[in-house]
């Protein structure tokens, strides 16, 4: 099955593994990720201000493209997911935003929030199913203790994203189980890594990232997985005593036997 795919800026540059393994693993599971034409960067952060229009237009263009190409937009990056989904939601609660966006863009067909935004993990959970995924695993990650790091962007605001329980999520743990490994549940898995503060105040980011990594290590993690390039950067670069952090798509590709040793 084909599905419209929004990779986002970082997956084409510093996070090429996140992109490549997502495409290869999807192909092995029967999905062709069709990259949206001429997509623009989502901006990385959703601005919650009601009167901000221009910063949300790149997301609107991707959403409209998804609507016209199968009705959905698939993303892998946590930030893209957060921005696209919050932008889409704004159409349903803010008529002023809807009107001004369409007035400005003058699209052939007006956009009113019709597309569905889907995270790669949701595709695995809701469509392919973790039970079916487990059957496709050829190299189970037996004996590995993996700490899933959700951070903020996949979970909050939960009333808009509706991705998983914001305080007790289980989607990534079930993903880890499907790959034959053991998930590590630790208190800081849904607390912030420091995000963009790392650019201006490296010390603050170090405190946040170290707290997350220490929490995962305390519960016995061998390594951590994430969907977010900025989380991966912060956890590996800013934690005092880091452990390996990998993209979930790389671990998926490995379990599916797509990575040659």
């Amino acid at each position, binding site marked *: 099955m084909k599905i419209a795919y929004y990779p*986002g*800026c*970082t997956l084409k*540059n*510093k*996070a090429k593994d996140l992109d490549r393994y997502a495409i290869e693993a999807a192909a092995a599971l029967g999905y062709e990720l069709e990259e949206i034409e001429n997509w623009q*960067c989502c*901006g*990385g*952060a959703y*601005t*919650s*201000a*009601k*009167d*901000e229009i221009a*910063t949300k237009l790149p997301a609107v263009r991707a959403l409209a493209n998804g609507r016209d190409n199968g009705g959905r937009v698939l993303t892998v*990056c946590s*930030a893209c997911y957060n921005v696209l989904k919050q932008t889409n939601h704004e159409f349903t609660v803010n008529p002023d935003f809807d009107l001004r966006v369409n007035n400005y863009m003058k699209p052939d067909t007006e956009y009113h929030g019709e597309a569905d935004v889907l995270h790669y993990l949701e595709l695995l959970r809701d469509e392919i199913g973790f039970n079916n995924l487990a059957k496709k695993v050829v190299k189970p990650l037996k004996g590995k203790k993996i700490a899933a790091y959700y951070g*903020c962007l996949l*979970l*909050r*605001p*939960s009333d808009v994203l509706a991705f998983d329980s*914001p*305080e007790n999520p289980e989607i990534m743990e079930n993903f880890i189980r499907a790959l034959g490994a053991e998930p590590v549940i630790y208190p800081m898995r849904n*607390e*912030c890594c*420091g*995000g*963009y*503060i*790392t*650019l*201006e*105040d490296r010390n*603050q980011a170090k405190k*946040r990232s170290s707290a997350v990594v220490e929490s995962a290590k305390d519960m016995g993690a061998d390594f951590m997985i994430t969907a977010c*390039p*900025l989380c991966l*950067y912060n956890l590996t*670069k800013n934690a005092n005593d880091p452990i390996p952090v990998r993209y979930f798509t790389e671990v998926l590709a490995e379990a599916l036997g797509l990575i040659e040793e």
Partner: protein
Amino acid sequence: MENNNRKKEQILRMSGAAVQKCMRCGKCSATCPSYDEMEYHPHEFVYMVERGDVEKLLKSESVYKCLTCFACVERCPRGVEPAKVIEAVRLEAIREQGKNHMKPDQIPELLDEDIPGQLLMMALRKYAK
């Protein structure tokens, strides 16, 4: 004072947050990962904006310490959305002519070879107009 009131109204409009629903429980500040770095904390943003005491907030570095992690929004028992209030105060500050908190020409010296593009985009969204 009148200008102050206009800024308060603008901040409330931008945020869409219901500051009058706050019952001063302090849970937003208790869960804030930037608490130790802030002069004014999330519950104070909510209270001071409601009172119209916005000038101190607009001048404070605290607006640049919020990570927009939305922990306060998620955990507020009254649905007040403090992070949206802080975001609106920050925008009110940087939308003023010449008040960008970070300029593109500051960025090259902050770079290392692994910094994701996502980080630069986010930072410019947060710090500059």
